[in-house]
């Protein structure tokens, strides 16, 4: 029976210059959910609440059937935050021994050393001597070696070259082979999410604009290029936002198939996640 690995119900977090929510979000078990949004949209804030780093000011968060601050729940969770990790003067061997003490019997030293070998990471080399990609691989090895049921990842592929990104995405696909495994990851690299995510949640100015199945989303949204006159023939609510130029109009539309039926002869390509974000952000910027 399908169940949710994580749920946010009416979650709110208020800072001096930013407010997140109220936010409702569910992460179905066995899926990869991509969390997208502009810088400062609230992605990291959301992940921090979900992983128990910070408590919400309102609403409630549930993780793996319990509360995020419960150590029993955290023992089944693997987390990678972009900046937060062990001190860079340590090496992988130190980290392995430290995590063995923290996770106890759950920590699989053999699996950790296997990941290090697979990623070509030397156990005795200090973290500060690693490249950005190697650091990310080490963070992932650390997050995976206690056999977590869920991975929460904040920008895991940011700043990495395509080869390393490919390796990391392969690892995620491998992890998700187990139907009880779940991944929630935020990313600015939407092409990565288009490759691996099952659904996309879009945060915009602290609000969840949508959380939809990725394939349905790609089919639903289209990028329409037409004249102003054609645009006026569209029913209300179909056009999300239009950018006008001397060459005509470029419009993000919902219901691409319907638009093509209504305006035969116009060009309406499927919109990517980047396009959707760009146009939503343009609409709200007006």
């Amino acid at each position, binding site marked *: 029976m399908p169940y949710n690995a994580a749920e946010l119900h009416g979650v709110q977090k208020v800072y001096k210059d930013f407010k997140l929510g109220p936010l409702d979000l569910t992460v179905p078990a066995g899926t990869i959910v991509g969390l997208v949004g502009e810088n400062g949209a609230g992605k990291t804030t959301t992940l921090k609440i979900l992983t128990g780093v910070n408590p919400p000011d309102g609403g409630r968060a549930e993780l793996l059937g319990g509360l995020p601050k419960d150590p029993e729940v955290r023992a089944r969770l693997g987390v990678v935050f972009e900046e937060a990790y062990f001190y860079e003067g*340590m090496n992988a061997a130190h980290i392995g021994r430290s995590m063995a003490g*923290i996770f106890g019997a759950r920590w699989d030293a053999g699996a950790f050393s296997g990941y290090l070998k697979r990623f070509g990471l030397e156990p005795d080399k200090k973290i500060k001597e690693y490249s950005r990609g190697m650091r990310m691989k080490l963070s992932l090895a650390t997050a995976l070696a206690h056999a977590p049921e869920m991975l929460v990842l904040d920008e895991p592929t940011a700043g990495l070259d395509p080869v390393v990104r490919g390796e990391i995405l392969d690892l995620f696909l491998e992890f998700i082979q187990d139907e009880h495994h779940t991944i929630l990851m935020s990313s600015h690299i939407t092409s990565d999410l288009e490759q691996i995510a099952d659904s996309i949640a879009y945060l915009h100015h602290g609000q969840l604009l949508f959380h939809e199945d990725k394939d349905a989303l790609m089919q639903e949204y289209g990028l329409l290029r037409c004249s102003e006159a054609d645009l006026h023939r569209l029913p209300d609510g179909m056009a999300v936002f239009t950018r006008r130029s001397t060459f005509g109009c470029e419009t993000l539309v919902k219901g691409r198939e319907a638009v093509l039926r209504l305006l035969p002869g116009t060009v309406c390509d499927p919109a990517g996640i980047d396009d959707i974000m760009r146009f939503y952000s343009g609409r709200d910027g007006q």
Partner: protein
Amino acid sequence: MRGLLYKDWSVLAGQYRKNILLLLVVYLGMAYLFDMPFMLYALVFMLGIYTQSAVSFDEKSHWDMYAHTLPVSPAAIIGSKYLLGLLAIAGGFLIGLAAFLFFPDIARGTMGMEEALVGMLAATALALLYFSLSLPLSYQLGSERARTAVMVLILLLAVLATASTVLLSSEQLQDIQRFFGFRGPAEIWDSAQEQTLVMDVEYGSVYQWARNLHFWWLIVGGTAGSALLYAGSWLVSIAIYKHKQF
């Protein structure tokens, strides 16, 4: 807790192994070559200071945010720092005490182990007091600002101590000093002349102080009080840490 302690130990050992060895050589060398027992007392404090750096390294790597995603409680995260501090102070105490066994003044008989023990206990009490203040302040203000805040606090405590001596009359001060054995009795019975003699003798040696049981109350009580303060400080740090946002 074991994993957390190991993390701090490996960071500090990695960063300061050479510094700590150099510190031991310099402090022991100065104590032995220049007859400076103070350097052995200071060792207790200096080794403790290194553990304070563990908080700075955590800040640099945003460790506390990461630690909040691991199956460890705030009490364990904070507890590992306090335990590390305690281990460092205990290590400094034992090294210092062992060094006193071969100290030239002890060998010559011009200084007793009793005096060394008193000095080491006083240094331990001071180190515990320092960390009792600095650790909660580090979690509240950050380790950089906490250092300044602790210095200001210690200065305030010194001013308060000085002010209290000004507020007391010289008789009251002498009574207190007599009570703890820093001053001889106000009067003694002279059996030869069969009359009471008025005395005003200030004792300057630990041998003389140590003959008064109240002096030991002060030393043992001070050390035990610092240890209690240290435990209280741990609870305060946990409360601060639980409300910290990352």
